[in-house]
């Protein structure tokens, strides 16, 4: 059976904080096994938009939405959907690495798998190894899995967080400026990784860095002042944008 063409999409999505509108009327679709970049200046609503996709937005103070978000055709804000279950299908990695400080490297990766009760040891070992390999971290940590996650460098911690996010096998991975707090080496690692990950996952990545969007993504959407100005294949957005604002932003005239 063919995969649905559009795994995740939003239809006239508006995200509010109390009475303040942070994102207005955004309709976008993210095809399976693609990397989709959201770009725009600070405060343009791209992170808020990303957080509506796995219902993290509603945890912010006063956070609510109108419009629809669908995963494989199913409304994720529907009455029968549990946000906890949903977040296991749509994983998220944050701007700053957030390893759990009381857990070892191994336990960090296993954290998401242990929510639904215990897995047999061998099976858990396999998933942890596979996830760390996928996050390109296995070779660096395989001899010290029992060590605290805080023993790792910032870039390694971020890859650990990616491993932790993909371990429960989500369908979609949301990345919120995953390289913002990393040095160039760490950034390069993550970018290569994102490229690899799209074989297994659908990826939505928020980034400040336009070169990064151009390097890693298949589609790009440009946000400005809470609205989605333009979206399309990355190549087209960067070489022949239709909107003047988009062109101004990507050529560095503002933002």
């Amino acid at each position, binding site marked *: 059976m063919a995969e649905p063409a559009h795994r995740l999409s939003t239809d006239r999505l508006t995200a509010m904080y109390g009475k303040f509108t942070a994102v207005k009327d955004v309709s976008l679709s993210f095809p399976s096994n693609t990397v989709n970049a959201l770009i725009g200046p600070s405060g343009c609503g791209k992170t808020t938009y990303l957080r509506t996709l*796995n219902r*993290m937005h509603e*945890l912010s103070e006063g956070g609510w939405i109108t419009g629809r978000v669908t995963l494989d055709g199913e409304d994720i804000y529907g009455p029968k959907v549990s946000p*906890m*279950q*949903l*977040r*296991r299908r749509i*994983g*998220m990695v*944050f701007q*700053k690495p*957030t390893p*759990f*400080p*009381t857990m070892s490297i191994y336990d960090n990766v296993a*954290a*998401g798998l242990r*929510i639904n009760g215990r897995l047999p040891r061998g099976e858990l070992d396999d998933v942890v190894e596979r996830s760390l390999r996928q996050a390109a971290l296995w070779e660096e940590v395989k001899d010290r899995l029992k060590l*605290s996650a*805080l*023993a790792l460098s910032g870039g390694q911690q971020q890859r650990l*967080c990616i491993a*932790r*996010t993909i371990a*429960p096998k989500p369908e979609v991975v949301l990345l919120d400026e995953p390289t913002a707090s990393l040095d160039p080496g760490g950034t390069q690692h993550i970018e290569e990784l994102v490229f690899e990950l799209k074989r297994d996952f659908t990826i939505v990545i928020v980034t400040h860095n336009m070169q990064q969007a151009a390097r890693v993504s298949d589609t790009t959407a440009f946000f400005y002042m809470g609205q989605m100005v333009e979206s399309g294949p990355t190549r087209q957005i960067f070489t022949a944008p239709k909107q003047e604002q988009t062109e101004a932003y990507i050529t560095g005239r503002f933002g």
Partner: protein
Amino acid sequence: MNRRVFRRWVSNFMVGLMLMAVIVAVAPLLFILLNLIIKGASSLSLDFFTRMPVPAGETGGGVAHAIVGTLIIVGLASGFGLPLGIGAGIFVAEYPATRLAKATRFIADVMNGTPSIVVGVFAWTLIVARQKHFSALAGACALAMLMIPMVMRTTEELIKLVPHSLREAALALGYPRWRTSLGIVLRTALPGIVTGSLLSVARIAGETAPLLFTALGSQYMSFHINEPMAALPLTVFTYATGPYEEWHRYAWATALVLILVVMVLSIAARLATRQRLSGRG
């Protein structure tokens, strides 16, 4: 005088002032400790820790009953106070904006400022006057009442120190709210909470006033929590205000024992945290 010399002079003067402040702050503490050791250490012996008091006029004997009493009363107080204090602290930190949390926080702050003798009188009215007899249990309740607001506020502050991003990371992984709070946030704050708890145990171990109206004190070894019981601070009080020279020396020695107990607890608190920290490396 050029500017550089002047600046250095001002700098040295300020450092001197701060050093003086440190000496003024620390000197009384050292003086108390030294005084205790000089006047108390000579009466300390193994007997002092293991034997019961002897009738006035005789020499020898010890404060074993008071050591046991303090351990029982403080143990009971911690048994009541720590779970309640930590539980209330978690609640107030997790639901900071609710009316109940604000009220709880306000009451805890007022209670933290309440003189301990008032708490003692309160426990007397509530328990001793009704039961019509003094008891170790009433003493433990009074101490627990002192402990709860202290432990609650430390727990709250330490939970608030856990970065919000950690909570979000757990929620984004599909953790339910309660598991995020207990498994991730509380666990991260735990070393600090352990330290805070042990320090509050040390703090109430030295309280005298609340016990005067409740546990009363006793000359005998007792394990019955429904009867009056001896405790180190009460024994210090009795001996120090007694008429005999011998008693005064015992008062010093008992005070030294009390300080030792408190010090052991404080050091345990330090060790508990340090082990956690090195475990991270």
